[in-house]
């Protein structure tokens, strides 16, 4: 089974804090990491490969620094790594991103399954997976929490829904996005780390993937950010003082009429 995993390098959002004085993101010391959901997608791909044979290729669109993340993916079990990188991609929204990834995947050509994380923690859009599936005209399933069965032609999987789950049968090739519940990602093995050091990462530019420049980056985007601002927090902030017993008594008084 040939599997492609799409991965994105993101700032570690847990560490991103708002500077109360300047109202901007304090980014100093913020690490770039592999998007956590993508890590689960990679793990699932590696497990499928270990069980059924095949190869796992990790694919990322991003700046040259994303190479580091791709090496990490190789150390966790990926066989090949492809980085699509070009200044022409700057400012891409999800529409331009799915176009770029689709063109890159057409270059890679041969695959049975594409796995992505359910969303990236920087943009949180969850649009690239389904948009990419549509561009490639293959079946799509979001929120996969378990792959039950896998044959050469079909997969049975569970899709997490708001009120429970759906059990699905999907013909291959297909694209899934996965949720965290699907597995517990492994840490890199020593052998993996050795391999990651040596591996030749395939680098593709806009020209290499034969992309139409009109469809790339800001120019190819269907949406435009017109304003960025800090969220407004509007609590009354009535602080209840005194001893713990007094605080609880006041809170009880405040809450009682609301119940």
């Amino acid at each position, binding site marked *: 089974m040939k599997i492609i995993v799409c991965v994105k390098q993101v700032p570690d959002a847990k560490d991103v804090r708002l500077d109360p004085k300047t109202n901007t993101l304090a980014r100093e010391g913020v690490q770039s990491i592999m998007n956590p959901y993508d890590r689960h997608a990679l793990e699932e791909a590696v497990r499928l490969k270990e069980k059924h044979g095949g190869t796992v290729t990790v694919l990322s669109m991003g700046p040259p620094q994303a190479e580091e993340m791709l090496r990490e993916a190789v150390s966790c079990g990926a066989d090949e790594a492809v980085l699509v990188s070009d200044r022409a991609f*700057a400012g891409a929204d999800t529409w331009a991103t799915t176009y770029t990834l689709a063109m890159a995947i057409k270059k890679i050509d041969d695959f049975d399954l594409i796995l992505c994380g359910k969303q990236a923690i920087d943009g949180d859009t*969850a649009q690239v997976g389904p948009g990419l599936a549509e561009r490639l005209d293959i079946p799509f399933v979001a929120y996969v929490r378990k792959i039950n069965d896998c044959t050469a032609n079909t997969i049975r999987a569970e899709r997490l*829904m708001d009120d429970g789950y759906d059990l699905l049968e999907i013909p291959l090739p297909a694209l899934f996005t996965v949720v965290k519940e699907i597995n517990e990602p492994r840490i890199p093995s020593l052998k993996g780390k050795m391999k990651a050091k040596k591996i030749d990462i395939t680098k593709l530019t806009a020209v290499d993937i034969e992309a139409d420049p009109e469809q790339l980056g800001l120019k190819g985007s*269907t949406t*435009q950010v017109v304003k*960025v601002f*800090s969220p407004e927090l509007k609590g009354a902030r009535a602080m209840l003082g005194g001893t713990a017993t007094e605080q609880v008594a006041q809170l009880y008084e405040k809450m009682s009429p*609301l119940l």
Partner: protein
Amino acid sequence: MLRIDIEACIGCGICESTCTFGAIKVEGGQAVVGDTCTLCGSCVDVCEVGALSIDREEKAIKGNLSDWSGVWVYAECRHGRIAPVALELLGAGRKLAEKRGVSLSAVLLGSKLEGMAEDLVAYGADKVFVVDDPALASFTDDAYGNALSALAKKHKPEIILAGATAIGRSFIPRVATTLATGLTADCTDLSIRDEDGALLQTRPAFGGNIMATIVCPHTRPQISTVRPLVMKPLARDAGRKGEIVVVNLDTAMLKPRVKVLDSVVEDLDRVNLSEADIVVAGGRGLENEKGFAMIRELADVLGGAVAASRAAVDSGWIPYPHQVGQTGKTVAPKIYIACGISGAIQHLVGMQSADTIIAINRDADAPIFDVATYGIVGDVFEIVPKLIEKFKERKSS
């Protein structure tokens, strides 16, 4: 491209401190732009010497945008029930439609939908398109995506709104791709721009650390998914009149590639978390799984549901369905009690529309207090048991 006029740049660094993406730096007395620039334009607005500009090559607009008219709401229906978010969107859509002077329509897809279209009219729709077909009995991206895309191609709405639910976030991107137009996910605010009638779509990004307002300038329809429990539904008015249009679509179009073998409703309290009037939530300050026993007890005494911050879920103290925040559920209960939650922005976006927020935290500087109606600086292990006692007494008296 972000252009820097090096003649004009005085290297003051205002742009550097404004950039939320850390993409612009002053090096050698001059601003330099890096790869992480998203072309959001924040730096252009603050530059006092006008040294920054963004080249926006005006894209040729295909077709006439004014051919597209009307606001649509995708009325999600699953297991025989209209999703509450659909009614909220009719409330939001009504306002947008009135501002634009156009009609508001709902699109209802499913099987055995008797009576539901009338309900959508009562909640504000002028028109309801109904596709009632056994092939739509279960949700599949293919069938639902094809149906909505086909209707939109034919009737050309200028705006389509859908709930940012598992279903909406799954198939709406496919619809946007098919229609070759823009989509903004997970919006928390929608309005119409006065100058040109464009839809201004505001959403949290970076785990809620920043808000971004987004437009879809060159194509139609403008599509948004909207967080549940953010918009307000209109009061139900059974006397409202609306047109119900039953549409029969080609069966080939509704044939999904993915087969739904089973659709299971799990009766966890995940279902009532979004609907609970009182939510008691715990975070990292609870220290371990046992801390949550206390939270559960308070929730039980108050007849509420239990929620958690991402930190608590990531620590494995409580399962993911309880998570509230950017990557979890959005809740808007009457009372939200945050115990030992510091209030990372990504948590706040999921609960700040609660009517009354009570925060209990050891750290007086915790950001949770910024959204709190009432705050207690103290030890949760001391405060919460006392509160449980108080309400137990009240119950027994």
